[in-house]
């Protein structure tokens, strides 16, 4: 494996363009665009303030740079380096900024979530959406980019608005039966919208595209509820990770629980394979446990030669008892990811130091990002022991 030289970046803003040709990095207030293969600098743009958020447009032609303190958004074009676009939100402030799926509209969320302004790069039209909800995931675009679901709250009630991304026409607006809506997510086929409640109540509501309530699901009452949610790529399953450390899978026909997965502290299942990372050089000192399910620190790329060995069952996962007195305790299933071939589900339970879990598009490998380290896990394709239902 070869490594390039080290480049500077700030705020972890490093993005490869969607077409995979360019790499954009932010260094303070500069935006550097490189060619992915040669890493030569193709463009260099300067923004007015330190860039806090950077995003490629979906067609890889534009880059959005947001500076929240100044309330500025600047858009740069790759085709025409001279082209510029500056959006100044003024005194109303800026909290978040993002592209629309067609790559021609920018959605700015103002401070205090007063409203969402939709700026168009094609026309002079500006749209305003009032009362967006400040929650875990208030906006979601459907995968085909046709519809946008927005969570709203007015008069102490939660609503969901469905917009057509074409012209930002409000298609549907309906109230949800949630106490405090925490997020919305479209299913990959764009026909079902999953809406879940805050952690104080375990409730998932499933709405069809036209706003009808299809089903609700609630596993238990009173204890802390849903922490994360993930659709399977075929839209057949909905995985719900909760604070009790379990993942429940619903099927798309009856919206009833198909199976549930637990994350026990001691793994006894004969079908489970536990990989333990054994570091040869005692640099960090501790031998971490790395398992298909439970993920901790990955290996460092440069320093230590670590190898993974298969541990004999039963295996005790080292669990750090988190402080339950704090809000949003570090318990429960915080992130889940389905592999693209619907075969595997990777989940992270507890307070393990993993920032993100992403599958490769072929479904063969998994990348785990920790705060300082990353780890690539390759699935052995030959040894197939699990099916869809029995995924662990």
């Amino acid at each position: 494996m070869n490594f390039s030289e080290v480049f500077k970046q700030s705020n972890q803003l490093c993005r490869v363009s969607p077409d995979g040709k360019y790499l954009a990095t932010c260094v303070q207030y500069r935006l550097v665009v490189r060619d992915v293969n040669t890493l030569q600098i193709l463009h260099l743009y300067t923004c007015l303030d330190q860039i806090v958020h950077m995003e490629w447009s979906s067609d890889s032609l534009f880059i959005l740079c947001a500076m929240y303190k100044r309330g500025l958004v600047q858009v740069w074009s790759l085709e025409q380096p001279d082209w510029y676009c500056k959006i100044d939100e003024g005194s109303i402030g800026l909290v978040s900024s993002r592209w629309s799926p067609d790559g021609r509209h920018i959605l700015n969320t103002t401070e205090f979530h007063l409203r969402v302004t939709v700026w168009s790069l094609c026309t002079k039209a500006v749209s305003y959406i009032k009362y967006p909800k400040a929650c875990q995931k208030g906006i979601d675009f459907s995968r085909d980019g046709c519809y946008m679901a927005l969570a709203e709250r007015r008069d102490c009630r939660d609503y969901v608005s469905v917009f057509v991304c074409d012209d930002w026409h409000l298609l549907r607006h309906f109230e949800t039966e949630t106490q405090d809506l925490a997020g919305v997510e479209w299913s990959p086929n764009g026909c079902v919208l999953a809406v879940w409640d805050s952690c104080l109540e375990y409730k998932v509501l499933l709405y069809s595209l036209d706003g009808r309530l299809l089903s609700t699901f609630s596993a238990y009452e009173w204890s802390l509820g849903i922490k994360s949610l993930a659709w399977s790529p075929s839209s057949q399953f909905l995985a719900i990770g909760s604070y009790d450390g379990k993942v429940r899978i619903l099927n798309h026909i009856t919206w009833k629980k198909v199976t549930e997965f637990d994350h026990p502290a001691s793994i006894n299942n004969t079908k489970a394979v536990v990989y333990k990372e054994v570091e040869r050089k005692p640099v960090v000192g501790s031998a971490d446990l790395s398992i298909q399910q439970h993920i901790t620190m990955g290996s460092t790329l440069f320093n230590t030669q670590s190898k993974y060995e298969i541990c004999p069952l039963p295996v005790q996962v080292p669990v750090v008892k988190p402080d339950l007195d704090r809000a949003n305790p570090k318990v429960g299933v915080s992130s889940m990811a389905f592999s693209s071939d619907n075969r595997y589900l990777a989940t992270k339970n507890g307070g393990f130091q993993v920032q993100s879990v992403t599958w490769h598009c072929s479904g063969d490998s998994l990348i785990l990002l920790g705060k300082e380290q990353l780890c690539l896990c390759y699935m052995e394709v030959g040894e197939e022991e699990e099916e869809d239902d029995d995924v662990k």
Partner: protein
Amino acid sequence: MGVFMHLCRTTNQILSKSGYRMSSLRQYSQSSVLPLPMTRNPYTMPTISAFCTEDNVSECISYINREVSSLGFPLLCTESNNGPELNLVAVLNNVYNLLQLHRRCLQTVEDIEVEQVKSNSNMDYLQLSNTRLKDQLELSKRENTGLLERERQLQLKVKSLHNCLKNEKEEVQKLQSIIASRATQYNHDMKRKEREFGKLKERLNQLLIDKKDKKQTFEVLNYVGRSDGKRSLWKTGKTEARHEGEMYKTLLNDYDSRHKDLLMENAELKKVLQQMKRDMVTILSPRKPSQSGEKHDDSLEQTSSEEDEVCDSSRESLELSCEHAREQLTNSIRQQWRRLKSHVERLDSQASLVGERANMNAIPKEVHEEEMDRLKLEIQQYKDFIHTQQQLLQQQLNSPCDDETASLLNDCYMQEEKERLKEDWKSFEEKRKNFEAERRNFTEAAIRLSHERKAFEEDRATWLKHQFLNLTPFGDQMKPQMSKSQSALSGWAESEVRPMSTPAKLNKSLSHTAFSTSRASPAKTPSTADLYRTHRLIPEKRYPTHDLDIHNRSKLQSIHIHGR
């Protein structure tokens, strides 16, 4: 009898203690006296008239004397000169004493009777009280068991209540923890909201103070085209309708695809069910002939009717998947399944019955099992054997780490072979020695032979010479020598029988000597020619005869020349 006597004796003793001897008197009186009419007092004795008569006065007196004296009273009469005289005073005293005695006896009897009555009543009373107490005891025991039972039940209840309490406590704790976590969450959210509220207020203040409102601005060099290249449309009712339409289209597409999938799944499942039913029918039908008569007919009819039904329903179900057809299918499958189940159960029971009745059937089974066990044991043994072999082999291969040991081991393996080789060598050596010895013998023999030949030749030569010379008139001088040579010749002629050397060569040599007149030289040490000749005795093929011939010829010539 002995007991009775003892009893009598004891009663006598008791009575004698008090000084009375009632029983004997009574016995006697009762035995010897006729029954007399009873007076008012039942205890009156019968009159003594029967006891004493005119005749036996003296005997009676003496008897009475005896009795009375035994009782301790003064004698009735004293012995005097005329005969026994009755002392009236004594008699009266005795009578009085006896009356007193009797009264006392009666008194005691009365007392005893009173006592007896008392004791009887006591006993009755005691019995009554005993039964009463027993009843009470019974009652109290029952009460006790009842109380114990109640206590046990109460204890169980207490235990269950404890458990309930524990569960409730746990639940309360859980709920408390939930409440606590919720409370922390609420507090956290409240704080967050308050913070945001505070920020909002600050911003509002700021805005009020600032007055100049920085408006939103949007600067762009030029508007870019849409990503899909089309022009944007105005928002009209038509577009709205279009959007609605599109939305419904996507939904309907999704439903269609799902519907298709479900139909396919349904069809497959139905196929599977049909298959199962057909299999069940086939399984059940061939067995029908083996079953008992009534069931046979009924079931056959049933199955045939079922099959017809089934076929119809299946055809129906393939065409219209209506509720009715589905129900029919499932019902028919359920029926078949039930029948199959009952059939299997019947078979099982039959098999068990057969197994129980006939031992013949059981024995092969046992034998079979024994065989199986034995075979398994054998297999295990063989496996162990193989395993040990493998282990040993492994050891063999792995163990030698030292060179010494390795060499030692190798030597050990080779030892046998080495010894065998040594033995072979020894035998070979011996053989070789033997061969050598034989060869030496042969060489010596050959040398001897050569010497003899030489001698013979010399003799022949001399004989020939003599012959030649004898042709002359001076032959007589040579006669004695001739005889020697003759003898030598004859000796040699005998030896010629031995297949030693080639006769051709000898002839040649003879012919040679015929021309040569020289005498053979005296025997020397065997020359190389001789040795060659002798060597020729052994492997002839080693040395080509032709060369030897020439060689020998030359040698012989030299010899003969020498001899000359």
